[in-house]
C-alpha cells in the first residue's frame, strides 16, 4: 500500500506546455505515472508530452477522468491555477511552483477549508510512491519500494535522507514533500495521519526546518495519536533570527519563535529521536525496523 498516489492515479498537468511542465510530465510518465491530460488556457486541442491538452482543468477531468493535478504554472498565475484545481472535482492537487505570493496562498487556504480536494505544496518537489508513480520533480532513481513513510518541508534534503535510507536497503512506501512556504496545503499532521493509517508504513521520517510551529504541532499529534515510530530531522539550527533561509517559510522570527531548538525539544518530548545528521536519521530508522 501507499498513500495519496499509486499507479491508478490519473493525472492532469497544469502548465504542461511550458518548459518545466513538459520536461517533468515526460519524466513522470517515464517513471510510470499515468498522465492523462494537460491543461493550459489557449492551448486546448494541442498535444504535449503525448497527451491531449485542454483549455481548462474541468475539461481534462470530464474528458479524461483525471483525479489529480500537478501544477507547473509560473508564480503570478499559480494561485489562480490552484483555485481552478480546487474548484474541480479532483482528489488531489500538487503545486510545485515556488514563489506564489503569500496573500494568494492565504486565500487558497480559505478555499481549502471549503473543499474535499487535498492540496500538496506549493513550493514542493511533490510526492512519490516508489515503483508506482511520482507526482512532481523528485528524481525517481534514488527511491526504493519499502516500508518507510517520509514527509519533508524540503526537496533536496528529502533526497539526501532517502539516499541514506536506500543505500542501506531501506525502501519507502511514499515520500511527500509538503513544501517550504509559510502557508501550505497538507502539513506534517495531515501526512503523519496518512502514514499512521497506512498498513505498510512501519516507520516514518519527518524532516522539518526552522520557521512556524508545524513541527511543534506535529510533535503533539505524534504524542497523542501516532503509534508508528517516527525519526526526525530539523534543518536550520545555525540560522540567525530574522533571515529568510531560502524557503519563504524558513525564518526564525525576531522574537525567537520558530527555532530549531524548540522543534527538536518538542519532538524529543514526544519520544521522537532527532538526528544531528541525515546519517543519524537513517540509524534511527534502521533501529526501528529492527
Amino acid at each position, binding site marked *: 500500500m501507499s498513500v495519496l498516489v499509486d499507479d491508478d492515479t490519473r493525472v492532469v498537468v497544469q502548465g504542461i506546455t511550458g518548459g518545466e511542465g513538459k520536461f517533468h510530465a515526460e519524466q513522470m510518465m517515464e517513471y510510470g505515472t499515468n498522465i492523462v491530460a494537460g491543461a493550459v488556457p489557449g492551448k486546448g486541442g494541442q498535444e504535449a508530452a503525448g497527451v491531449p491538452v485542454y483549455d481548462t482543468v474541468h475539461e481534462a477531468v470530464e474528458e479524461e477522468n483525471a483525479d489529480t493535478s500537478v501544477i507547473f504554472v509560473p508564480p503570478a498565475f499559480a494561485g489562480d491555477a490552484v483555485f481552478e484545481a480546487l474548484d474541480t472535482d479532483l482528489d488531489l492537487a500538487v503545486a510545485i511552483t515556488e514563489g506564489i505570493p503569500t496573500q494568494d496562498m492565504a486565500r487558497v487556504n480559505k478555499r481549502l477549508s471549503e473543499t474535499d480536494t487535498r492540496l500538496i505544496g506549493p513550493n514542493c518537489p511533490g510526492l512519490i510512491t516508489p515503483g508506482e508513480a511520482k507526482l512532481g520533480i523528485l528524481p525517481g532513481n534514488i527511491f526504493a519500494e519499502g516500508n518507510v513513510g517520509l514527509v519533508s518541508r524540503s526537496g533536496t534534503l528529502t533526497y539526501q535522507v532517502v*539516499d541514506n535510507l536506500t543505500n542501506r536497503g531501506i525502501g519507502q512506501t511514499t515520500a511527500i514533500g509538503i513544501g517550504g512556504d509559510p502557508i501550505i496545503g497538507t502539513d506534517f499532521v495531515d501526512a503523519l495521519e496518512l502514514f499512521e493509517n497506512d498498513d505498510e508504513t512501519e516507520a516514518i521520517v519527518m524532516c522539518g526546518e526552522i520557521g512556524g510551529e508545524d513541527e511543534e504541532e506535529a510533535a503533539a499529534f505524534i504524542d497523542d495519536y501516532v503509534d508508528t515510530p517516527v525519526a526526525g530531522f530539523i534543518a536550520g539550527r*545555525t540560522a*540567525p533570527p530574522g533571515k529568510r533561509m531560502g524557503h519563504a517559510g524558513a525564518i526564525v522570527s525576531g522574537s525567537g519563535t520558530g527555532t530549531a531548538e524548540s522543534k527538536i525539544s518538542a519532538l524529543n518530548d514526544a519520544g521522537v529521536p532527532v538526528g544531528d545528521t541525515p546519517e543519524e536519521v537513517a540509524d534511527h530508522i534502521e533501529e526501528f525496523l529492527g
Partner: protein
Amino acid sequence: MKLHEYQAKQVFADAGIPTPESQLASDVDGVLTAAQEIGYPVAVKAQVQVGGRGKAGGIELVDTDEEAREAAESIIGMDLKGYHVDQVLVEGAVDFVDELYVGITMDRGEGKPVAMVSTKGGVNIEEVAEEDPDAIAREHIDPSFGMHPYQARKAVYDAGVDPAVARDVSSVLTTLYQLWDDRDGADAEINPLMVTADDEVIAADAVMNIDEDALFRQPELAEMEAEAAGSGDDLEQKADEYNFDYVRLEGNTGIIGNGAGLVMTTLDLVDHYGGEPANFLDVGGGAKAERIANALDMVFSDDNVDSVVFNIFGGITRGDEVARGINEALEQFDEIPKPVVVRLAGTNWEEGMEILNEDLVTVEQTLEDAVQRAVEYAEEVNDQ
C-alpha cells in the same frame, strides 16, 4: 522587502493615515533647512533598515539649530548596527499623551492575516507579546472577505483604547489593513500611533514589509526597493544581482548547495563538526554552469571565507552541469583562492564526477565527509 520609514510614511500618508510633517535630508544643511521649515522641536531619524535605532543613537530630538546641527553631524554617516546612514528624516515632534500600537501581519499558523492593537505602544511589541500577551488585542481576518469594519472596532475596544479616539484608531487600522492587502504586505505596523491631548492620532513611526514574491505586481514598491537599496551589505547586493538566496553569516567556511533545506543542513553540519558557516547560498533548482560559477564568485568575494564546501544533490539540477560550472569558474585562476570541497549526488552525479577537474577541487562521496574536510581546510588556513 522592507520599506524605509520615510517611504512607508509616504505610503501611509497617501492612504489617509495622519503622519507628522517631515522632510528627508542627506546633509547638515538639509537638516537645518528642514527643521526650520517644519519648526522646532523636530526629531532627526536615521533611515536604515534596523530596529532599535533610538537606543543605538540613530534618533535625536532637537530644539534648536545648534542641536539640529549636532544631531545631523553625529547621525549622517554613522555606522548603525552595520548599516551606513546616508539619509535622515527630519520630522515635527508630536506632543503626545498616549502611545498605541496597531499592526497587521500574516499568522502563518492560522494561514490568515491578523490585526493587532495595543495600548502599550512605543516599546518593542514583541516584548509586550511575550511579557503581557493580553495587552495585545488580536482579530483574525478572513482573507476572502477582508477586514469587516466591526473587526477593526472590536480589536480597538478589546485593547481598551480610550473611547475618545476609538473611532479614529479603528479607521487607521482599517486603512492599514487595506494597504497591507492592496500592497501585498508581509507586516504593516505603526508603533507608536501617538494620541495627542486634543484626541488626535498620528503615526509617529511606520513599518511596511512587502512580500518579495509579490513585487512583480507592485511596480511602485519595486521602485522604492531600488531606492531603498544602497544601504545594505555589498555581498547581499551582489546576491540580489545574481538572484541567489543568500544570507551572510560570521564564520569562515563558505557553503554552496541546492535547495534551502539541504543548504541549511550543510550549515548545521559545518557547525556540528566544529566549524563556522560563513554564509547560506542556495543556487536553486536546475542551475546551469554559469550560475554555478557565479556562486563560486560570490563566496570567493567574501574575505572571511577560508574554505568552501560545494554540496549538490541533483534532482532537477544535473551533476554534469555543476561540474562544468565548477571547472569553468576555477580554471580562470592561476591559483585557486580558497580550497573547494565538492560532493555530487543525485541526477547525473557520475557524469559530473567524470567531468570534474580533480586538480582544482577535493572530491568527497558523502555530505558528512565533505563538510568535515572543508572544516579542516578552514582550520588549517586559520592556523597559518
